């Protein structure tokens, strides 16, 4: 796969646009080579932690490529958000799973996937690269120094794209809530199916620790639950059924 991906690059970069070889271009292709090697290493690793680290390396090299595009703000965001936040999230999940792979590569149905997936993809890669090689540059001169700075991107972000910016913040809140709901539902199911000895799980005991204390106290005293300080009996199951899917 490495040979298949790297072999076209030699003849792709060479013929038409090779007239001007300057130092920035050489440095850019060194960064690009490291990016591609890191990306391939991400896919080839058997160890998950090594794969995540390869991806972090790839993102750092991509941030270097972004600075060649005079996108300094996006380069900083790449390091902070991608290599920082998202990859830490991946590391957390790898640590939580803590599991060796039994079958890292696809072997079952490999012939079908190779025939219908990979083989059409190889000419796609090749023709994509050959087509993009002849893409003309509209403004051959470099943009001015203010291009891509925090001030310029921020000015666009808070004038023309203010609504999209706010929508993105709402999207992030929705994603956080969805992640919490999805990730803790299974654990709560297990806890419901294995109650402590004698103490039946009360409805709504998951939604707050003080509620747990009052509900267990009201369970000990044989009074009807509506009269005590416990949660209302009709309220809890409705919340449960709404908040998470059933175990089956």
């Amino acid at each position: 796969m490495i040979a298949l991906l790297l072999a076209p690059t030699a003849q792709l970069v060479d013929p038409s646009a090779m007239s001007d070889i300057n130092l920035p271009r050489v440095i850019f292709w060194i960064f690009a080579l490291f990016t591609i090697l890191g990306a391939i290493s991400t896919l080839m690793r058997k160890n998950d932690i090594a794969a995540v680290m390869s991806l972090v390396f790839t993102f750092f090299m991509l941030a270097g490529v972004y600075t060649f595009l005079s996108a300094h703000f996006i380069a900083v965001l790449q390091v902070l958000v991608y290599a920082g936040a998202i990859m830490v999230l991946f590391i957390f999940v790898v640590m939580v799973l803590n599991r060796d792979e039994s079958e890292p590569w696809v072997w079952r149905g490999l012939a079908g996937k190779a025939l219908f997936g990979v083989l059409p993809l190889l000419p796609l890669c090749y023709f994509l690269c050959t087509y993009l090689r002849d893409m003309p540059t509209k403004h051959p001169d470099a943009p001015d120094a203010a291009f891509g700075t925090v001030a310029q991107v921020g000015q666009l972000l808070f004038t023309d794209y203010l609504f999209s910016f706010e929508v993105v913040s709402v999207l992030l809140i929705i994603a956080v809530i969805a992640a919490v709901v999805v990730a803790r539902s299974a654990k709560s199911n297990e806890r419901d199916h294995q109650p402590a000895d004698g103490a039946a799980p009360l409805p709504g005991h998951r939604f707050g620790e003080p509620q747990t204390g009052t509900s267990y106290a009201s369970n000990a005293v044989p009074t009807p639950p509506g009269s005590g300080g416990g949660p209302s009996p009709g309220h809890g199951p409705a919340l449960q059924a709404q908040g998470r899917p059933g175990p089956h």
Partner: protein
Amino acid sequence: MIPTSDFLILGAMLFCIGIFGVILRRNALIILMSIELMLNAANLTFLAFARAMHDGKGQVFAFFIIAVAAAEAAVGLALVVGIFRNRRSVNVDELTLMKH
């Protein structure tokens, strides 16, 4: 100055590597990482065209793509954790619950 086509070729190669990862790997985590690679390829293409057109809007879109990728990673990893707790596996070939 580096021609725009160099950046576009790099983006195309990154995207193809991501597609290879999605097709050939069975670990859900690696598939998510491949999707991140493809999103980065799209980002690189946006930035390359932003510089070629001398237009800052491409960089704003790259910013939005990074935000959406963060949301996607959060939800996707939560799904992986939930699936692992239910099925004790992150192999996507074993997730055939809707088949039977």
